[in-house]
């Protein structure tokens, strides 16, 4: 049986993209798979009794070495902020290519804690900073120093000791450009270096609390229980900075979604589902309920989504247990058709993710296709005609060209880059100043403008000739020819309209990272947890890939 890929006009709506969940394709899971046979080592650990100082961790295989250099320092409580406007953090980190020399460490010491206003070099691959979770950091140290494990309930409520507030890569602040690394197979997956950094930071947080507790009470202190460590991840606060990324990298976005859609299609095409695959699917599904029931958020928007998800999941489990025969042919296709008609987006995408669990033979090859070469498709095929362009717009932007941009509500927001932090921001066009410096992210509006502009053009006219007088729309002409080849490259929504929920864009990206427990703090930023439940570095050689459902929380 041949199943069609799902329709981009449906899947690429923001409300659907904002309902995506982690899966076997997620970057943090594929990172662990790739690096499971690398040698992990703690190369330097030079912290004082308060936990301030430096540490280095590395992954090594054959002649290749990646080193995480950590700098931890004192931070006053009143200076601690997750917002991008902060200038100081509890700890700062950089992933270095190879073994850092003494001179490298000195150079990094002078620059990495400064983050955006420091400079790193092409020898560095990723840069980050993090703040302690005030809620549990001291509690964990006090408990360990007193010879007891911390309260699991408190641990469970937070889920991490540190929270990163930014993770930079690919050329930012002098970091190595992507082209310098493109032939390295082990990092041929999106954000793999960033995942490595976050994963090693997690280990640093455990070593730091153990170290401080031990020096606080050398005779009585104990180490943090390994099981508790596994169930702690790294938190992350994410704001709007992440949102334009998915608009600015259309081919990458396509490749992520296409991998997911291809996996689903192939799973739906399986004629007979083996009993062990059915068991694994069902097992993951049931175990994952714990991740939902322990998913805390103060956001009413998210609380409602979680409530709906839980209700839908129970409905689905009831259906599977009482009304469904897994022995019938194309069982996963029948499941998909049922969930598509009976459940809401959040739960549909949740179950789609879990469907992938038994099928690494399907997902593993797809992981390798999730990077992109945006430059390859940058040139506009100017020999093509207005007829071609019109066809693309009508087929690929079917819903977009129906939006009425004469309405005020369709033009409510504008995206801009803040002068203070060089970070993307969103503002109300009719209230705030600055819309004349709008970033080219109003794709829907500009596509509609392009569609209207070509209405009276001759079909035979070349795109090159059209552009002579219409270069103000060049950026969307380029995109039209990209979406022709890459059907999932465009968000099929108006991201300057009054109905925009910006965190949907963040959730999409974070779900591909492998984040859990999305916790919106407003409609523009959220907190998440990464690597919660993951094996520890010295357990990587042999671990269960379904670790994400093994959380104690």
């Amino acid at each position, binding site marked *: 049986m041949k199943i069609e890929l799902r329709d981009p006009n449906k899947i690429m709506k923001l409300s659907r993209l904002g309902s995506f969940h982690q899966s076997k394709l997620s970057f943090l899971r594929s990172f662990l798979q790739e690096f499971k046979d690398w040698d992990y080592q703690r190369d330097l650990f030079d912290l004082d009794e308060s936990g301030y100082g430096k540490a280095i961790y590395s992954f090594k295989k054959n002649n290749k070495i990646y080193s995480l250099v950590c700098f931890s320092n004192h931070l006053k409580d009143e200076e601690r902020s997750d917002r991008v406007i902060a200038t100081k953090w509890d700890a700062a980190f950089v992933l270095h290519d190879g073994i850092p020399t003494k001179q490298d460490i000195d150079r990094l010491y002078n620059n990495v804690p400064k983050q955006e206003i420091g400079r790193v*070099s*092409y020898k560095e691959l990723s840069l980050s900073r993090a703040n302690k979770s005030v809620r549990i950091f001291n509690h964990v140290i006090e408990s360990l120093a007193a010879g007891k494990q911390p309260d699991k309930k408190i641990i469970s409520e937070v889920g991490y000791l540190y929270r990163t507030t930014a993770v930079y890569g*690919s*050329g*930012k*602040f*002098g*970091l*190595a*450009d*992507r*082209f310098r690394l493109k032939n390295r197979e082990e990092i041929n997956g999106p954000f793999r270096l960033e995942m490595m950094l976050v994963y090693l930071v997690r280990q640093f947080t455990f070593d730091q609390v153990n170290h401080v507790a031990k020096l606080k009470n050398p005779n009585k202190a104990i180490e943090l229980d390994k099981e508790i460590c596994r169930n702690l991840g790294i938190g992350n606060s994410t704001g709007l900075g992440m949102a334009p990324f998915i608009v600015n990298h259309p081919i990458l976005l396509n490749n992520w979604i296409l991998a997911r859609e291809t996996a689903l299609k192939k799973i739906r095409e399986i004629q007979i589902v083996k009993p062990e695959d059915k068991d694994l699917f069902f097992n993951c599904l049931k175990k994952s309920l714990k991740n939902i029931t322990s998913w805390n958020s103060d956001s009413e928007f998210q609380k409602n989504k979680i409530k709906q998800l839980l209700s839908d999941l129970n409905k689905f489990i009831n259906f599977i247990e009482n009304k469904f025969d897994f022995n019938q042919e194309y069982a996963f296709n029948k499941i998909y058709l049922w969930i598509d008609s009976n459940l809401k987006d959040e739960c549909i995408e949740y179950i789609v993710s879990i469907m992938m669990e038994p099928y690494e033979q399907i997902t593993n090859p797809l992981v390798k296709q999730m990077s992109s070469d945006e*430059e390859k498709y*940058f*040139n*506009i095929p*100017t*020999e093509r005609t207005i007829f071609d362009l019109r066809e693309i717009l009508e087929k690929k932007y079917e819903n977009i060209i129906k939006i009425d941009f004469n309405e005020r509500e369709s033009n409510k927001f504008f995206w801009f*880059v803040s002068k203070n932090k060089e970070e993307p921001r969103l503002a109300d066009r009719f209230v705030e100043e600055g819309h004349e410096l709008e970033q*080219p992210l109003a794709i829907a509006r500009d596509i509609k403008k392009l569609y209207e502009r070509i209405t009276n053009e001759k079909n035979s006219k070349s*795109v*090159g000739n059209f*552009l*002579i*007088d219409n*270069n*103000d*729309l*060049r*950026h*969307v*002409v*380029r995109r039209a020819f990209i979406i022709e080849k890459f059907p999932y490259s465009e968000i099929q929504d108006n991201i300057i309209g009054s109905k925009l929920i910006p965190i949907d864009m963040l959730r999409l990206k974070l779900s591909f990272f492998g984040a859990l427990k999305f916790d919106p703090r407003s409609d523009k930023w959220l907190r998440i947890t990464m690597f919660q439940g993951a094996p520890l570095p010295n357990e990587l050689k042999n671990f269960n890939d379904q670790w994400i459902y093994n959380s104690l929380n």
Partner: protein
Amino acid sequence: MRSFSEIDTTTKRACKAMGFPWGIAEEVGKNIRNMELFGLPGVKNLNGYFRIYPNKQYQKISLITQNNISDKIPYCPIILGVNFLDQVKVLEKNKKINFKNIAFPMLFLPFVSRSSEIVGKRIFLEIDEKKFIFNFNQTIYSNISDQLIITNAENLSLSFIENNNSFSEDEWKEIYKLSEKTFVEEKDSLKAHSAGAGLTDND
């Protein structure tokens, strides 16, 4: 050192700030990045051009022909470049294309480099005495010094180089003969058993 990614982003924004549309600014960002990657002074030339751009007038060419002359005011290298890039598949039919009076012609070069890749032909370009060969946007060969800023080109000409080898047939035979010394001469038994397929493949 600034990364190439930073150069791309920053020059793109600078170009937009000068009043060019975003789509053209994207082209310029990629171009300056490429120039710096090839060791050409992209940022220097762009700064030089943008320093005087607001106070001067530039000819914004639309359709490029075989001979393009702007006597009074110089051609804008960015608009010229964008149109050259967009029209190159038509323009390659001309053996030689001439331009008179281009401001900051170095900024035109990365467009030519990318055009060389689009048409799949090397392009030879002369700016007065300075010579360049563009190799499919992979490399640029030139006889200029490293950090050259040219504020104006009196004459700029370019020609598309047909895809011919740089060596004669005899020179090829000479090198091929040497390569043959790595081959094993096949006796009948080797012919019969060493290839995957049979001696006849008429099935």
